[in-house]
C-alpha cells in the first residue's frame, strides 16, 4: 500500500433521508490520474466535499498518506497537501488575476503572517505567481479583476490558484463545466502538464468521452455508491455502467 496517497474507508453521509454518499471505499494511487464519473446527482461533489473537509461524514474515515485526516479542518487539509477546485467558480471577484494567484502563491510560500513588509517584495512569491500565470495562460489578463474574465478564464484562474499551492493530490471538480467548446482543449492541456509533473489528480466529470483518454483509472459513482472501478476502456464497456448512464445520456453508441 506504499503507493496509496489518499484513501477513503466506508465513507457515508446523509442529508435527511437521502444517503448522498454510501459506503465509498477508494484507494487513490499516487501520481495516477483517476476520474470519478457519474450522472448528475450521483454524489460526486458531495464526495469531494467530504474529502476536502467541507462536510463531516456520518460514517467512515479518510486517510491522506496513511494519516487519518477525518477530523481536520479544510485549511489543515490544504496545508497537508490536498488541493481542490470548485465546480462553481470560486475566486476573489474584485481582486485582479495577478492578486488572486499571488494570494495562493503567498500561502504556498508561508509568508502570510508577515505584518510590515510590502507584499510585492517577496521574490519567491512573485516568481511562483509568474510561473503559474504562464501555466494557466492568463499573463495577458494579469491586471483584470477576476469578475471581468470570461467564464473559461475564470475556470483557468481557479485551477491556477489550486496549482500554486503545489498540492500532492489535486481534486478537480468539473473544471470544464460551462466552458466554451474551443476552450476545453487548453484546460485538458493544463491538466496533462500538471499530471506529467507528478501530481496525483482526481477529476470529477460527467462527460465520459472527455476523460477516457486522459485517465489511468475510471470510477463510476451512481446514487452515492461505487458501481464500477478500473481500467477506463473496460469500465466504459461495462453493461451496468451503460445501463446506469442511459437516463443520464452521455455515453455514445449505447443502445438498448
Amino acid at each position, binding site marked *: 500500500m506504499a503507493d496509496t496517497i489518499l484513501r477513503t474507508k466506508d465513507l457515508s453521509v446523509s442529508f435527511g433521508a437521502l444517503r448522498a454518499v454510501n459506503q465509498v471505499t477508494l484507494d487513490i494511487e499516487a501520481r495516477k490520474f483517476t476520474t470519478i464519473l457519474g450522472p448528475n446527482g450521483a454524489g460526486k461533489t458531495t464526495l469531494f466535499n467530504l474529502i476536502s473537509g467541507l462536510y463531516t461524514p456520518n460514517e467512515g474515515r479518510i486517510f491522506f498518506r496513511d494519516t487519518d485526516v477525518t477530523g481536520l479542518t479544510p485549511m489543515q487539509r490544504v496545508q497537508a497537501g490536498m488541493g481542490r477546485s470548485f465546480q462553481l467558480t470560486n475566486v476573489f*471577484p474584485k481582486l485582479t488575476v495577478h492578486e488572486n494567484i499571488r*494570494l495562493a502563491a*503567498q500561502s504556498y510560500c508561508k509568508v502570510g503572517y*508577515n*505584518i*510590515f*513588509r*510590502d507584499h510585492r517584495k517577496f521574490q519567491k512569491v512573485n516568481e511562483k505567481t509568474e510561473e503559474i500565470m504562464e501555466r494557466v495562460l492568463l499573463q495577458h489578463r494579469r491586471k483584470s479583476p477576476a469578475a471581468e474574465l470570461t467564464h473559461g478564464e475564470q475556470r483557468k484562474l481557479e485551477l491556477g490558484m489550486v496549482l500554486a499551492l503545489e498540492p500532492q493530490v489535486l481534486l478537480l471538480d468539473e473544471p470544464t463545466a460551462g466552458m466554451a467548446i474551443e476552450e476545453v482543449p487548453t484546460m485538458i492541456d493544463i491538466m496533462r502538464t500538471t499530471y506529467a509533473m507528478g501530481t496525483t489528480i482526481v477529476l470529477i466529470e460527467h462527460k465520459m468521452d472527455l476523460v477516457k483518454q486522459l485517465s489511468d483509472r475510471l470510477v463510476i459513482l451512481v446514487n452515492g455508491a461505487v458501481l464500477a472501478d478500473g481500467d477506463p476502456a473496460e469500465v466504459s464497456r461495462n453493461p451496468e455502467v451503460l445501463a446506469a448512464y442511459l437516463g443520464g445520456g452521455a455515453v455514445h453508441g449505447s443502445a438498448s
Partner: protein
Amino acid sequence: MDKLKAIGTINIRKTAALAALLALFLIIPHYMRNAQLIMFSRVFILAVYGMSYDILRGYTGFINLGQAIFFGSGVYLGVIFLNMQNNLGSFVLALGAVILFSAAGGFLLSRIVLRTGGVVAAAMVTLAIGEIVRNIAERWRSVTGGQDGLPLRFSRVALDPLFSTRVGGYYFSLAFMLVMLLILRAFILSPTGRVLMSIRENEQRARFLGYQTNRYKTIALIVSSIAAGLSGVFFAVIARFANTDYLSIQYTLNALLITLVGGTGTLYGAIIGSFFVTWIQTFLLDLNRSFPGFTLFRYPMLFVGSFYILLVMFMPSGIMGGIYRLADWYRSWKTKRVT
C-alpha cells in the same frame, strides 16, 4: 518606454500634490483661531480612529460595534496617566498602557466574536460588550468619575513644547496621523493585509488557500484596537476631559460615519471622512448660533441625519469612492475624445 514615462510623471505629480498639501497643513495653523486649531487637531486624531475602523470594516469585512471601548479607554488612560504626572514620560506610559490594554482586549474580543460566526452576530455581540464596558465605567466612580467624567487636572498639558499651546497640539496631532497612516498603510500592504482583503472578498476561498482566517481576523482586530486606543490617548490631550460618552455606541457610530462618508477600503478616506463629520457638526451648530430666529436650525442633527442619508443613497462608496468614479469617468471620456 512611453508608458513608463507616463507612470513616472503621474508619480511626480502625485508626490508634488501631496507635498503641497502637507506644506499647507504646516502653514495654516499660524493663521487659525484656537477653536479652529482644536477642530483640526480633532480631525487628525479622529481620522486615525476612522482608519482603525476601516481596517475592520473596509479591509476585513467585519462590523465591530464596540470599537468605542478602545477609543474611550484610550481617552481615560490618557487622562489618568497625565493626572498622575503631567509630563512626556507619563504620556508615553499611557501610550504603552493603551497598547497592552487594546492588544489584550482585542484578543479577548476576537475569542468571543469569532466563535459566533456571522457578520451580524459579531455586530450584535460587540454592541453588547461595548454597552457592558460603558456601564462598568459609569459605576466605577473612583476611577472614571462616573457620569461627571474625569477632567484633566492641569489647565495646560505641559508636554513642552508640543502640547503647551494649541498650535503645538495641532502639530502633534498631525504628526500622529501621518505616522499612523504610514504604519497602517504598511500593514494593509503586507501579506497579512492582503489576506484580510481576500477574507472580505470570499472567506471560504481564503480558507481553501490554506489561510487560517480566524487567526488573521484576530490580528486585524488587535491592530485595529491598538490604533483606536492610541487615538484615544491623543484625543485626551486635546479634549482635556474623559467621560463615558467616549465609550458609548455614539462614538462607535462616529467611526462608522467617518468610514461611511470618506469611503471604505482606502485609509485616506478616513481623513476626508473625519474632516467632514467634524466640520459639518461644527458648521451646523454655528448656523444655529448665527440665525437664532430659524426654529429649524435649532435641530442641527436633523440636517446631519439627512446629509448622511443622501450620501449613502448617492455616494454609497463614500467621497473617496465618488472621486475614483469621477476619475474613471473622466479617463474614459478623454479616451473617447481621442479615438
